């Protein structure tokens, strides 16, 4: 309970740490270059899968997962953050540090589930989908930025959090906002060497 009083201060320091790393210790590239590179990847996938967008979603997710499991190492090395004790602090770290350091955005955290095991990130800006407009046939099915879900899932899994991550809405689909949902399934146990029991 005593935690709750120190929470705002902690959140503030996370924000500060994220901004400091972004500002002073990050090599940067043009965001448009990033956008158009990702665009080329998605467009190639749409061609390869003959506009079966379900498969494109899966492929982007899978690609993101493989990035996430490696990206977390860089993140931990850069921030030197300790393990998060609950999902509330995890959400703060994801939004204020991780997104800030890698994409220079700070999504809002909302829609906490009753058990505090699921939350939503509202992406007001999204460097992956800047200047992107989906064709009619893709609007219904394609989750353009699905790679983000994969990255989050992979990275969180590496810190023993088994999560489901998916998009609920996307402005590219005509929704009012871009909302990404993260739900904790279970905290993975630290493995004990065989023969200990």
């Amino acid at each position: 309970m005593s935690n709750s009083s120190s929470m705002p201060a902690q959140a503030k320091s996370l924000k500060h740490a994220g901004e400091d790393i972004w500002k002073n210790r990050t090599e940067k590239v043009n965001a448009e270059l990033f956008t158009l590179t990702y665009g080329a990847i998605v467009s190639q996938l749409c061609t390869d899968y003959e506009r079966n967008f379900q498969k494109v979603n899966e492929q982007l997710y899978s690609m993101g997962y493989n990035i996430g499991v490696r990206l977390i190492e860089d993140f931990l090395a850069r921030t030197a953050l300790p393990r998060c004790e609950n999902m509330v602090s995890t959400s703060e770290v994801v939004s204020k540090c991780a997104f800030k350091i890698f994409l220079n955005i700070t999504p809002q955290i909302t829609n906490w589930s009753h058990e505090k095991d699921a939350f939503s990130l509202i992406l007001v800006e999204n460097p992956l989908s800047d200047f992107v407009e989906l064709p009619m046939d893709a609007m219904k099915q394609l989750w353009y930025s699905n790679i983000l879900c994969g990255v989050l899932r992979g990275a969180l899994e590496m810190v023993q959090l088994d999560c489901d991550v998916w998009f609920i809405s996307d402005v590219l689909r005509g929704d009012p906002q871009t909302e990404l949902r993260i739900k904790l399934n279970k905290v993975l146990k630290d493995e004990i060497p065989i023969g200990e029991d």
Partner: protein
Amino acid sequence: MTSKMAGDTRSHTNPEQDGMTEQQKLQHQLQVFQNSLPKVNQIAFQMLLNEMVPLAVSVENKLINSEIKGTPKRNSSELEEMITNVHITAPLDKPSHKLCQQLYEANDGTREKILERLRSMGNQIGNKLTELLVFSNNPNLVFKDMDLLSVMKFICRDVWKQFYGKQIDNLKTNHRGTFYLLDYEYRPIQTFALDDQSTEEELAMIKPFFEIPVGLIKGVLSSLGYKEEEVVCMASYIDRPTDRPKSTFNKGVSFHVQVNMQ
């Protein structure tokens, strides 16, 4: 900043240096403009770029699988829809390094298809990257009456700088359409730790990572009027000159570009 401004005003009295400072001023403006653009982390970009290789392999795997399965796939589409509605995650791909290993072991036909996919993505990026750079107000760029040599210089300087954070180290040409672009520290592979004992096998496994810039070069050229069928581009390893500082990756890359103009 202030000292620079002072320098500019002083030089106004000296007509000889005027052109020079004008150029510097434009360069400075370009720098300010570039810095004002939105940015993302270089590591995020680099990882995205490097992940394209395993991605291309994974796509090929899935395409082959769906060909084998053939028609029954259609019937399961209803089920597929149900699954996606409850957000069950599709089975994940193999880890990236396994996919890279698989690319190395693939037969020639499959490998060529995968490499072609990488070149195609590079090509698309190159096409759009030109637009990005054309509108960057770079005082060094004059696209009107641009000859092939200046186009290649544009690739070496601006395209490479934008994409890999450094310029090409050396450009060689015979002035008849053959160019060698030498990069002794090709960025995406610098983190691949290979020492002096790097085997042929390891080098061969890393080679697919050159296909993206190969596509990129062709894409930039095609967006500036050199058609794809007129251009041949290949990449190979070269030894790094001994006078260069030691780097973690002991090989440089040579991009051989051949432009056949009618």
